């Protein structure tokens, strides 16, 4: 009964989403307050119903209810509890339901916290959110129903894709989806502004926290996915320019541009049209990402053509929402009034430059990702656009952006003084150059570009610190006063500083991969291989059983300067119900670097094929991403970002004062 109740809740949610789109929009058109007030009610009910539906599916997974097709295909009664819960979103249908759940959650949160917004904008935004929900619920019910039943029910399921049976991948999709779907709020705000014809600095302030939340989760989701690929796929890399990765990188780049352009809009009331366009593009790229990953177009363009139902459905959603919103943009955007003007050398100018670089980088990734697909669809030729293309296009855009970043951060609004800023940043710049020189001297004969990357990373970190110091000191005050002031700085300033430092930290991590060491060897038990400063000794190999898999593993001892510092046990696992073996890399963290081992097959002579890596400072890559996200969360918590929720609470007093 629970399963059927969940199924019905989803069907009912479709009806509610439909009503929640049409009636509030009618209210917006006729300025009818009663109809507009239906929008938040509909959004809250929608969230309740989708949540009920999701809980019902999760319960079917927990109970191993094999009368549900989705549970048969993706679960197994021997699965540990954690993977039964994550099993829900490890497959197409369940993950689309999670997608809708998060969308409904954002609508619900918006309905709850956005009540201080202008009523017409509020109703229009929620109606747009409902329309997105309606489209995706329809997609679920028509082409990817997770509640399809089977009778008679088999006694056992087919098990979860072993690659996905991993804590990293258990939490990666929810993080990423919160990021993807969070972008829908900015989209709905943009459409709402175009419909109501009203957009101003207050709009930017309302949309900013939502964009920031989406951006933070997207950052964490991408970092998590990258770390998962790093230790689970066993290739030792951390970013492969794979279309699936690019699909998440593109919305991230545009969202990054968006959170910067909303700052300009909030402070200076300019860049309105551009910000609206970015809002539309961010969510459009999220949809494109969903399409790429979910339609099967990536496995092969032909696979898509063979079973086109799902792909065509998502493509239809894509065309309606992206095409519709861009048409609306072309029609209504000229009506938006432009705001404040600024000199080229100013904070605004720097942020425009930032936006241009990020937009160009997005275009590069977009072309690199979609061109091979288009080519394959048109001519059947399969080409692969890999790291060389992105190294040649993406990096030349990112490096200058990183270089000008501290200058932009330190420039004043409206009209900046580049010379003054340069003077104030001289120490940070000087230190960074010295660090670069030292690294060059210490690693003479090594990689050429990597020390430059490290210098750039330090420049970002030191430049951010210099900026905070400058703000705290003002025009020269005592040290204790400066500390007090620094503590009192708005959280959004700390947030942006932290996020920029995070970029620097990641950059150092990436640069340091140039000094990584890779050994691909065949070893016999007892043999030792030198990997960097470590001696890695193969102790032996064995067989062991997990809860639902069998594993061939090898045991390595890692010796650092004659002292055993740890053991590595990489293996190959074969899961019950699946025949495909998966490799399980083993990591030993020393400082911020990692010794990485993965094993291949055992050959008839008893030798084990192994890949051994020493990756110095590699953890910086992900630590930097976490710092970036942390910076974003700091900004969200800024009291100014909370204003949207606070308005209503403070309204009576304001009214009384007038």
């Amino acid at each position, binding site marked *: *009964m629970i*399963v*059927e*109740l969940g*199924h*019905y809740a989803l*069907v*009912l949610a*479709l*009806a*509610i989403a*439909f*009503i929640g789109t049409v*009636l509030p929009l*009618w209210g917006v058109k*006729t*300025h*009818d*307050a*009663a*109809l507009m*007030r*239906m929008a*938040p*009610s509909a959004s809250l*009910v929608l969230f309740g119903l989708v949540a*009920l539906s999701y809980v019902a599916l999760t319960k*079917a997974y927990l*109970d*191993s*209810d*094999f*009368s549900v097709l989705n549970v048969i295909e993706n679960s197994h009664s*021997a699965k540990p509890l954690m993977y039964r819960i994550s099993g829900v979103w490890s497959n197409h249908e369940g993950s689309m339901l999670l997608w809708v759940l998060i969308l409904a959650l954002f609508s619900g949160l918006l309905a709850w916290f956005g*009540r*201080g917004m202008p*009523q017409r904008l509020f109703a229009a935004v929620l109606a747009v959110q409902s329309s997105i929900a309606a489209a995706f619920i329809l997609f679920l019910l028509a082409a990817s*129903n997770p509640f399809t*039943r089977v*009778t008679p029910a*088999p*006694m*056992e399921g087919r098990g979860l894709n072993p690659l996905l049976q991993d804590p990293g991948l258990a939490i990666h999709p929810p993080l990423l989806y919160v990021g993807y779907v969070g972008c829908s709020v900015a989209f709905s705000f943009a459409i709402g502004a175009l419909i109501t014809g009203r957009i*101003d*600095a*207050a709009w930017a302030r309302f949309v900013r926290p939502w964009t920031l939340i989406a951006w933070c989760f997207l950052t964490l989701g991408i970092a998590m996915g990258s770390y998962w690929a790093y230790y689970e796929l066993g290739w030792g890399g951390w970013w492969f320019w794979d279309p699936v990765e690019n699909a998440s990188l593109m919305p991230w780049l545009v969202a990054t541009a968006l959170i910067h352009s909303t700052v300009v809009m909030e402070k200076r*009331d300019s860049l309105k049209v551009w910000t609206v366009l970015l809002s539309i593009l961010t969510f459009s790229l999220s949809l494109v990402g969903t399409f790429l990953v979910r339609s099967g177009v990536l496995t092969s363009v032909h696979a898509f053509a063979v079973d086109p139902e799902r792909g065509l459905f998502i493509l239809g959603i894509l065309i309606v929402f992206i095409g519709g919103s861009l048409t609306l943009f072309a029609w209504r955007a000229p009506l938006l009034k432009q705001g*404040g003007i600024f000199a080229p050398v100013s904070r605004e100018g720097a942020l425009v430059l930032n936006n241009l670089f990020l937009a160009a980088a997005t275009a590069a990734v977009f072309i690199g990702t979609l061109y091979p697909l288009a080519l394959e669809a048109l001519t059947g030729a399969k080409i692969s656009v890999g790291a060389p293309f992105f190294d040649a296009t993406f990096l030349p855009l990112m490096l200058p952006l990183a270089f000008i970043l501290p200058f932009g951060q330190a420039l*004043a609004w*409206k009209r900046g003084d580049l010379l003054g800023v340069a003077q104030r940043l001289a120490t940070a710049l000087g230190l960074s150059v010295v660090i670069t020189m030292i690294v060059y001297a210490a690693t003479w004969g090594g990689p050429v570009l990597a020390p430059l990357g490290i210098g750039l990373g330090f420049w970002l970190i030191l430049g951010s610190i210099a900026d905070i110091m400058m*703000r705290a000191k*003002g025009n020269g005050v005592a040290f204790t006063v400066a500390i007090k*002031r620094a503590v009192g700085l*708005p959280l959004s300033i700390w947030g942006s500083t932290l996020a920029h430092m995070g970029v620097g930290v990641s950059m150092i991590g990436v640069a340091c991969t140039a000094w990584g060491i890779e050994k691909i060897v065949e070893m016999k038990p007892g043999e030792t291989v030198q990997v960097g400063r470590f001696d890695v000794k193969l102790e032996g190999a064995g067989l062991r059983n997990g809860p639902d898999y*069998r594993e061939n593993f090898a045991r390595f001892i890692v010796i650092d300067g004659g002292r055993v510092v740890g053991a590595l046990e990489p293996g190959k696992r074969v899961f*019950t119900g699946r025949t495909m073996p998966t490799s399980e890399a083993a990591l030993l963290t020393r400082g911020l670097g990692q010794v990485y081992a993965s094993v291949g097959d055992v050959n008839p002579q008893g030798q084990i094929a192994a890949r051994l890596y020493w990756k110095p400072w590699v953890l910086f890559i992900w630590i930097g991403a976490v710092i970036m996200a942390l910076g974003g969360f700091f900004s969200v918590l800024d009291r100014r970002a909370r204003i949207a929720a*606070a308005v209503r609470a*403070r309204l009576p007093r*304001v*009214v009384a004062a007038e």
Partner: protein
Amino acid sequence: MVLWFSLAILTGLAVLALLWPLTRTREAAEADDSVFYQQELADIQRDAERGLIGPAEAEAARAEAARRLIASRRRDQGEAEKRVSPQRARWASLAVLIAIPAIALPLYLRIASPNLPDQPLASRETAPQGVQEAVAQIEKHLAQNPTDGRGYEVVAPVYMEMGRFDDAIRALSEAARLLGPTGTRLSALGQARVAQSGGVVTAEARADFERALALDANDLRARYFIAMAAEQDGNNNKALEAYRRLAAQIDPASPIGQAVAAKIAELQPKTEAGSVVAALPKDDQTKMIRAMVAGLAQRLETNPVDPDGWMRLIRSYVVLGESAEAEAALSKARAAFANNADVLRRINDEARGLRLGIAQ
């Protein structure tokens, strides 16, 4: 019943929640943007006090914020004529009341299975079991105790029964690995492989049988399949010999006894004559064959109604190079079946194939 009741309640609650805002016609106080701009003015003030912006810049910023505040107020007033029309509210209520059940119910009935109860595994495991369920339970047990060789051995024959040969092979290999190989286990594994390959004794299967025989020379199943392997290799003599030795040791009424007997009956005519002859030296072979042919000819003289016998005789003469004898036999055969058109045609066809009777 409980389900329908729950669905009705769910629908009712959703409809009520949507109708609720329509019932409140009184206008609530609406927020405007003034708080936002007041906040901005306060920020400018603080930045100015801290010395982050000069007095002149602060003044300009204040003026800009104030201008925007005034613009925002003006716009709000322009929009302020907020209308609540009871008529529209009635239409909207009607739409909600009709559209929601009208969308949800037919769609649900079309795609769902409302009569199918939940079937959590825990409640099914205590229910009476069929073979499927028993197998599933053993599989689950084995997933948790993958070193239990006995479990594999128990489940393997069931797999064979069910035609799940791949699973049977896996289970039997596990049993042999975990419990140690014996003749019985290895020959069972070999049999599973034969079943999987559709009755062909593959090299892999044969290796299993050979290992089984190495461990237990008397393993009947292994011996039977080794004989079958020889037969499939085309080595009928060896196969027949092996089957015969096997038949001597087993109860002819048992299934394997019957299978062996059937094999022997099938192979005997293909091999008997040839095998004896092949064992003799060349000269003796010819002598022996001639003797056999003479015997056949004699038999046909006394009992001519044997078309196959005649054709074998004619072929034998051709093989021996005695074409005159062959022609003579052909005439005799034709004479014997002069009244039987069918047999006559077969004989003539055979003769044409051997290039005989062309003279006529």
